[in-house]
């Protein structure tokens, strides 16, 4: 059951990722990215990461996509309005990406990974919170300062003065 779901989600992931990088329309590209992020969240659910799946839907599929769509609409309006971009796929980038992916796949397949799966945790979110607020408390606080700095920086950069 979960294997079938995984294959369906993987196919969606790959197809929509290809759509993101090949379509000429900016808006379609962002919408395909939205679908990619939703299927990633689905795979997170299958891999016993409910909290991360929900965060993926809220933060990535929700906030990030809307932010990017706002920027697309703001930067394609105006005198030279055009929503399409001519992409000229250069041969060397295709070759580079295929070689890179092949290398990664070769490495993955040449290692025999442990097949025995540990028993699935039942209270993932609780355990994650315990880890985050005890063992990883300092990185957590540093991450919040980083978010604050990025917020202030984005406002300072984008405001009109």
């Amino acid at each position, binding site marked *: 059951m979960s294997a079938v779901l995984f294959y369906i989600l993987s196919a969606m992931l790959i197809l929509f990722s290809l759509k993101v990088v090949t379509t000429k329309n900016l808006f379609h590209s962002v919408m395909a990215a939205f679908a990619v992020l939703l299927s990633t969240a689905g795979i997170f659910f299958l891999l016993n990461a409910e909290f991360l799946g929900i965060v993926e839907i809220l933060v990535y599929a929700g906030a990030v996509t809307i932010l990017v769509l706002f920027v697309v609409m703001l*930067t394609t309006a105006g005198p030279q309005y055009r929503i399409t971009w001519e992409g000229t796929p*250069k041969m060397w980038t295709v070759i580079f990406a295929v070689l890179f992916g092949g290398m990664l796949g070769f490495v993955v397949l040449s290692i025999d990974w442990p097949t025995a799966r540990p028993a699935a945790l039942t209270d993932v979110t609780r355990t994650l919170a315990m880890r985050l607020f005890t063992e*990883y408390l300092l990185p957590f606080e540093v991450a919040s300062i980083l978010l604050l700095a990025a917020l202030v920086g984005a406002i300072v950069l984008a405001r009109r003065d």
Partner: protein
Amino acid sequence: MGITLSQVLILAAAMFSIGLYGALTRKSVVIVVMCVELMFNAVNLNLVAFSFFTGLSALRGQVFAVFVMVVSACELGLCMAIAILLYRNRATIEVDRINMMKW
């Protein structure tokens, strides 16, 4: 028969390569940043898969994935601010027409 670790790793590798291709080819800053997010997502997928399949220490991979998400959200917010600034100053966000820093 369920999911195996190498299947998830292959999927993440494919996703990373597609994101890499997009980041190298696309002209719009917005899509380049979206492709970088795709690559971040592939990395997160790897971390979650390792956390699921090798129970070395419970959920350490998921904690790392949380931090990767925080950093990539910061990066994306700043990139979007820079894109708006570029559009205001240069009236374009095509990466090959933004060449004022070329030596």
